[in-house]
């Protein structure tokens, strides 16, 4: 099993190195097959491990590959942990990655950076696998930063475009803000547990959960567990794009579409969610941290969903939808429903990757037009893309029987049962979010595939369904988007698949209460038809269809009536403006202040050159004394003599 894990992790790395260094010499065919082959091997091996676990209850595995560094009794190592949680993650990652690899063959066909692209996405797969399989924080951080690096490289893949290189720098820096919190969290973990290994940390926590230290960080005593959890969660907020560190994700759409599907929807952005689930034994001990998580998740889910409604770029709509769905996952974490969160992470990975890849198919068909106002009626030209988008959207809005329905309902119910602070606030946010999700998803479908054609005749002439290499991954992703929820809900949520990886305190286990009320998935499905989320979803869909089918004037009426709120939305709640005008300006201002006043004026001007000038000045005066004229010296001598004599004789002269 150890070798299987190493195979899973390193096969994509070999593919990446091969494409990166030899790709240009060996041609496109060989390099893309090596890259696809590497990921295929990874996927097959991951699937085998998953089936071993599901069918034969294979035991967990925790092993060290090598010692990275050791100090005294401490050792930091590179090692792997294989359990239910990491198995789900590696299967999701390798499957979506495989689909994206195949899709890329078609999508990037004529791009001059073909090998570079394959090299990057294989490298990404490697880094992501290292991240989810880590058995300690050091390696987690390695993977964490490495996926950030590849994301940076891929957002800026078309580095001639100014918008792309603006977006990738922004993404990297915002993520670094999160990583900064994450790193401090890791430092705090070492401080408290004297180890970075998950196993040691969890063992210590389970033994001494009641004697929690406090730490003074300047404003009152904090429980150190709360401090750790919040620091770690700041890291998660960066990676999983939670408000207010979400600003990079919409801009990341500047990258090629395959990576939007792989990195910025299905895998990397879920790393934060995964990490919090992995750390469930810690988060369970801090109600403060959990309610913070719940609050942030709920805010993100609702506010970002609303922004999805007003976007016109097909990729940006899906990006805001991703932000909103990540909010759902994070809210579930806050409600201690870690399993539900991971369940949604999995279903979302499939249907959101599907939606992005379908959007990519549309973008190719439309010759890189991304504005949905310039589309319409595409279902006649791209029927398979249409069906796949429809399936993805139905899963996203939570139509019963589709995968998203099960995972989203599990989240809503768990938040409903949760007694955490902010839980009722979160519950309402998430409920309204369902209505919103239905609106933007339906709007996308209507404007792209239905309604009347709004593109030029020249576009129309060349409009056709995408080639097979693009369609096949869509179909393969559509299958789990329909069925995975129904199929896996029982073992993941009601069973003990995550028993060894996720820990929930019995008295805040909303998910358990919820799952006890159902004996089967079928019963759950029937029950859900009578609940609020289902009807909210349906009304959202109906409203949107009504607007675009029967009453197009409705949109303009709304636009006129709601001018001010719309302005706020169009500016994305002014987050970008704030960052640009306040934070960026402030740091350059500080830089200039320190440089011009501190370094140039005070240190160099006053101290360094000042002392030089002082020396010069003194020399100038003293130099005057040494004029070389004899009579000057004689005068000075006489003066000196007078002073010396005066000094000596002074006390002898009584003043009368």
């Amino acid at each position, binding site marked *: 099993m150890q070798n299987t894990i190493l195979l899973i992790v390193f096969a994509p790395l070999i593919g990446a190195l091969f494409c990166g260094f030899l790709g240009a010499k060996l041609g496109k065919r060989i390099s893309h097959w090596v890259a696809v082959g590497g990921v295929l091997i990874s996927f097959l091996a991951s699937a085998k491990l998953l089936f071993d676990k599901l069918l034969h209850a294979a035991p967990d595995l925790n092993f060290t590959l090598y010692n990275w560094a*050791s100090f005294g009794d401490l050792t930091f190592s590179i090692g792997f942990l294989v359990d239910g949680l990491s198995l789900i993650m590696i299967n999701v990652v390798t499957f979506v990655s495989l689909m994206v690899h195949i899709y890329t063959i078609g999508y990037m066909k004529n791009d001059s950076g073909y090998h570079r692209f394959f090299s990057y996405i294989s490298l990404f797969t490697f880094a992501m696998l290292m991240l989810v399989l880590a058995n300690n924080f050091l390696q987690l951080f390695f993977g964490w930063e490495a996926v950030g690096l590849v994301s940076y490289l891929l957002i800026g893949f078309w580095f*001639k475009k100014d918008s792309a290189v603006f977006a990738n720098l922004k993404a990297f820096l915002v993520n670094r803000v999160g990583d900064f919190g994450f790193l401090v969290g890791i430092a705090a973990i070492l401080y408290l547990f004297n180890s970075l290994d998950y196993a040691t940390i969890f063992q210590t926590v389970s033994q001494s959960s009641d004697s929690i230290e406090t730490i003074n960080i300047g404003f009152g005593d904090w429980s150190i567990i709360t401090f750790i959890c919040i620091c770690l969660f700041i890291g998660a907020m960066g990676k999983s794009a939670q408000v207010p560190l979400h600003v990079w994700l919409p801009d990341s759409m500047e990258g090629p579409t395959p990576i939007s599907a792989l990195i910025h929807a299905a895998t990397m952005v879920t790393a934060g969610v995964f990490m919090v689930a992995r750390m469930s034994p810690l988060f369970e001990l801090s109600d403060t941290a959990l309610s913070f998580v719940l609050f942030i998740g709920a805010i993100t889910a609702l506010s970002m969903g609303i922004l999805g409604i007003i976007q016109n770029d097909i990729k940006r709509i899906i990006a805001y939808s991703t932000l909103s769905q990540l909010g759902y996952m994070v809210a579930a974490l806050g409600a201690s429903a870690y399993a539900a969160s991971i369940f949604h992470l999995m279903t979302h990975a499939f249907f959101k990757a599907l939606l992005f890849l379908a959007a990519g198919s549309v973008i190719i068909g439309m010759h890189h037009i991304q504005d949905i106002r310039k589309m319409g009626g595409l279902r006649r030209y791209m029927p398979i893309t249409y069906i796949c988008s429809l399936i993805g959207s139905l899963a996203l809005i939570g139509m019963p029987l589709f995968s998203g329905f099960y995972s989203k309902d599990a989240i809503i119910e768990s938040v409903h049962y949760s007694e955490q602070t902010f839980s009722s606030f979160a519950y309402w946010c998430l409920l309204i979010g369902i209505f919103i999700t239905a609106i933007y998803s339906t709007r996308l479908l209507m404007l792209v595939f239905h309604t009347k054609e709004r593109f030029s005749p020249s576009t129309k002439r060349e409009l056709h369904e995408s080639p097979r290499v693009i369609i096949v991954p869509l179909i393969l992703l559509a299958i789990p988007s329909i069925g995975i929820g129904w199929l896996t809900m029982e073992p993941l949520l009601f069973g003990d698949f995550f028993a060894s990886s996720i820990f929930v305190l019995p008295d805040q286990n909303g998910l358990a209460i919820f799952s006890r009320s159902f004996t089967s998935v079928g019963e759950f499905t029937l029950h859900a038809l009578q609940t609020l989320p289902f009807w909210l979803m349906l009304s959202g869909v109906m409203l949107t269809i009504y607007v675009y089918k029967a009453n197009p004037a409705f949109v303009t009426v709304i636009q006129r009536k709601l001018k001010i709120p719309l302005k706020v939305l169009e500016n994305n709640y002014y987050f970008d403006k704030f960052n640009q005008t306040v934070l960026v300006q402030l740091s350059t201002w500080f*830089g200039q202040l320190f440089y011009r006043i501190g370094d140039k004026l005070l240190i160099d001007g006053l101290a360094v050159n000042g002392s030089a000038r002082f020396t010069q000045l003194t020399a100038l005066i003293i130099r005057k004394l040494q004029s070389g004229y004899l009579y000057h010296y004689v005068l000075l001598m006489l003066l000196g003599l007078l002073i010396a004599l005066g000094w000596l004789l002074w006390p002898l002269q009584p003043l009368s």
Partner: protein
Amino acid sequence: MDTTITNQVPWLSLLIWFPVIGGAFLLFSVGKSKQKLSQWLALIISLVTLFFCIPLYMQFDPSTHALQFVERSVWFESINVNYHLGVDGFSLPLIILTSFIGVIVTIAGWRNIEHRVNMYMAAFLLLTGLMNGVFAAADTILFYVFWEAMLIPMFLVIGIWGGPNRVYATIKFFLYTFIGSVLMLVALIYLGIKADSFVIQDLQILPVDMSTQHLIFWAFLIAFAVKIPMWPVHTWLPDAHVEAPTGGSVVLAAIMLKMGAYGFLRFSLPIVPDASLYWSETLLVLAIIAIVYIGFVAIVQRDMKKLIAYSSIAHMGFVVMGIFLVFSLMSNTKTDAAIIATQGAYFQMISHGFISGAMFLCIGVLYDRMHSRQISDYGGVANVMPKFAGFFMLFSMANAGLPGTSGFVGEFMVILAAFQVSPWLSISAGTTLVLAAAYTLWMYRRVMFGEVESKRVAVLNDLSAREIFILLSLAVVVLLFGIYPQPILELTHSSIEYLLKCGIQSKLTDGGICTL
């Protein structure tokens, strides 16, 4: 007669005198016009010097803190000053780094230096040998001689092959470092007379009372702080870097800055431990200022070399921080954390040698082609120099401390250890994650990305085989030590344990003889 040579071959003497004599030979026997001959001779001499490191590394015993490869012969008998060499875990990695960088700068100066090639090459060979001497000296006076002698070739390198404002920069550089060193000399002579020995190890066990310790600490501090350089005595470095030729910048950043930190480990901490403890918090504050203040300053730089010079100061802040964390950590009996802090500081010294060297070489690659260091003169270079773009990206990421590169290791360790003293220390040091990424990647973006900005950029040639060779060898090292830092940690491990257990033990109370 007091002459002991404990091993057969005097490897340390060879590491010092072979390049020095080779350099002198180049200077006096090879004509100014014989460009090719000078280059090849210099390359061979520096390669042979690097080769001398192999037996040194192979035979080095990392399990002891004691000096190894000791060479000792009488020099000035009347005042008890000896030619005394030896290495331990603190000096060996730096000697290897110096010899390695010696080869790199020789190759880097291959094309772009056209006048007085023999002198240029000779200066770098002299530098290599003298810097090896600094790290190998076991006698304080010998140390001081190397420490000062090394300034001369550096002074000439900047003064002769430097940029337009080189005179201001050289004088500033020389005065700064020289004034600092003179105070150190006074302290060393005082200590030598008091101990009746100039052997560094004897001074380390010499009892010194508190008020004297303060004076000596400050004399040392000024010398070392200027070299590192620490805020506020850092302003010579950006000027020196901007004016220095590429090779000069590489040596300056990669090795000379390390001499200050080496001085802390070799002199300040063990000789005046109580004063070091007393002032440790002040130094931590200065380190934080170096990291945060200089980080902001780096963001607004418009000159690439200045930017990297400022980033060097910020990175060296981690070295100072790691070294002076040990006092608080040891007094709270957090030995493991103290080891992490010192190892982190030391690792950062070595790693910064490779990364900053590589960054200056990358800027040199651009400067050779465009004769400009201004960021605004560039733009879209990645379009025409894809191979260079790859290397420059790797080193930029290493400079921003990306895990998997050696730049991450030291900073990570110091931040981890800092938390054990105070969360705020860790948090302030952690800002480097954002700041370093901001200034490095923003520079990268403006220089490399975008459409080709000008006709001059459009005709740039990608890297030559020679340039690929030097950048690749640095890239391998940066990645290797990022993925597996243990080899360096193992070399220094015993010396650090000894320093923490015995070296910094108080001299005011009689703790008896300290043994491991």
